[in-house]
């Protein structure tokens, strides 16, 4: 079955790779009845991430897209060590981070920060913006005590909030402003990598634009590397240098933005793009892009996870999991693009 065990192609680990994810797997235990356990049935697990390979280049914006539940957040959270991976490795500047603890972990987190999706629950409702920032700066001794207030003002300016904002509680801010506060909080640690999990999904388009602009400016100014996790393909396309497409816990395609959006390879990517409504009235195709629903992560289909909804699936797809292989402008995990031909070398 495990036809694919060969090591990663060396060219992937280029000098400017800042974060290298390989073979990352993460499962969550699912509830199971006592009877089933007594019967010795294997414990069911939610397959949130399966053998994920991904490299992030310094200074780039890497978009991560995929349907709900495909593991985007899990990936983000595993990268910042909110979750411990089951297996696989994450290297930051060449150093393994999956086992970091204590001070080393804190140092890592200073470099790799995360901004959360929900502008309402990601801020402690009882702490003023000033307190939030003071705490981060204080705990990590980012500045001597005397300079903390000045730094807070600096950060607020950086994210475009008035200085008076320091004295206010989160509920006094709009959603967009709260996301700015979240960004300021992450930036207080002067990170190198910013992981933005659905940063603007909860915002109105007009406000989205404000936050997106801020992100662009900050990236310019602070040379940030950004992992931009989102649903919205239009935004991802606008922001990202490269895009990774995930499906059921796997990365199925990674490519330059231009390549991905103009010449998507994976049938899933194609379907996804087709399903996203464009702003051109009347361009809808006759047939639905992808039919059916996402299979349960408790019961991931064998072989290629997408085969159950794939219009081009064939025999091999059900038995062999396609590896993420390099193609022009990116990588794709689909038997259709197997250099040895779609039929590959597999038992019929």
């Amino acid at each position, binding site marked *: 079955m495990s036809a694919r065990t060969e090591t990663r192609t060396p060219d992937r680990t280029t000098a400017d790779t800042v974060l290298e994810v390989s073979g990352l797997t993460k499962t969550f235990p699912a509830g199971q009845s006592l009877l089933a356990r007594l019967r010795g049935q294997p414990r069911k697990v939610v397959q949130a991430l399966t053998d994920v390979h991904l490299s992030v280049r310094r200074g780039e914006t890497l978009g991560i897209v995929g349907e709900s539940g495909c593991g985007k957040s899990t990936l983000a*959270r595993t990268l*910042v*060590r*909110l979750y411990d991976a089951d297996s696989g490795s994450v290297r930051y500047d060449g150093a393994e981070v999956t086992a970091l603890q204590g001070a080393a*972990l*804190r140092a890592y*987190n*200073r470099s790799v*920060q*995360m901004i*959360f*999706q*929900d502008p*309402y*629950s*990601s*801020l*402690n*409702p*009882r*702490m003023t913006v000033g307190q939030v920032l003071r*705490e*981060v700066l204080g*705990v*990590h001794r980012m500045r001597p005590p005397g300079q903390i207030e000045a730094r807070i003002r600096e950060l607020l*300016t*950086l*994210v*475009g*909030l*008035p200085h008076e*904002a320091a004295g*206010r*509680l*989160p*509920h*006094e*801010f*709009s959603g967009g*402003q709260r996301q*700015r506060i*979240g960004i300021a*909080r*992450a930036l207080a*640690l002067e990170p190198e990598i910013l992981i933005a999990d659905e940063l603007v999904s909860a915002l109105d388009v007009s406000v989205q634009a*404000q936050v997106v*602009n*801020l992100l662009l*400016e900050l990236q310019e*100014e602070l040379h940030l590397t950004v992992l931009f996790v989102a649903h919205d393909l239009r935004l991802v396309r606008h922001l990202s240098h490269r895009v990774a497409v995930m499906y059921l816990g796997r990365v199925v395609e990674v490519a330059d933005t231009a390549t991905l959006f103009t010449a998507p390879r994976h049938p899933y990517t194609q379907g996804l793009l087709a399903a996203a409504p464009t702003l051109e009235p009347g361009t809808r195709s006759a047939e639905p892009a992808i039919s059916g629903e996402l299979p349960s992560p408790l019961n991931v289909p064998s072989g290629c996870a997408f085969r159950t909804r794939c219009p081009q699936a064939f025999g091999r797809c059900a038995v062999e999991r396609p590896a993420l292989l390099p193609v022009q402008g990116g990588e794709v995990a689909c038997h259709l693009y197997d250099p040895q031909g779609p039929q590959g070398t597999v038992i019929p």
Partner: protein
Amino acid sequence: MTAVTTVPAAPARARRWPKPTLLIGLTLLAVLIVAALFPAALAPHSPTDFDYEAILQGPTARHPFGTDNFGRDVLSRVIYGTRIDLQIALFTTLFPFVFGTLLGALTGFRGRWADAVVGRIADLVVVFPFLVLVIAIVAVLGPGLTNMYIAVSAVGWVSYWRLTRGEVMSQKKAEYAQAGRVLGYSPSRILLRHILPNAVTPAIVYLMTDMSLGILLGASLGYLGLGAQPPTPEWGVMVADGKNFMATAWWISTFPGLALTLAGVTFSLIGDGLADALRPRA
């Protein structure tokens, strides 16, 4: 860098005045506290002195609430009772609240075996008949308020533990708590500074209900002779003592009964008000 200075001013800072419920509740509480602190200044008579000349007298100008079977002034006893009953309210809930909440925070946050162990103990406490425990403790240590507090505390923490544990378990999944971890905060900081303040509200609101329950429990134990000991002017015991005179001298139990109701209403108003006031604005 061009700061986005065009950001709109935040929505007008909505001043949150306490709701009328809370205001009324706090006002009533203030009245009770004044009565508890300065009973001597308010009460026209001694709460314990007998007056054999004035036994079982109905309300008069001299004794607005009448006198009891010892000729004691009911008004004065009600006023002096305030301190006792507020004390009961406080002491029956203080330890359960503090201990239960902290334990709930710890086990809800760290879970695993500690949670399981405490859960078992809580089961035990809940299925053990409260009265047996109270009477046992009171019998071992003697009746009186202190031992009632001990008995109630031995049981009372479970509610707070449950409430806080559940709330902490859900709060720790909130993104702000997760953010704390990514920001490299220590677990204790996340728990105490971030989660607990947000998780403690139900416990505080319950505290108010619990306070009136505490007073009522005092009254019930008084009925069984296990509560406050005479001549302590405790409202519940006064009501119980007056029950034999309900037909002939209604005032003996009615006025302390009103005081109990007043205290109950006070705590409940504060509870409702706090529930509202402490709810964080999203």
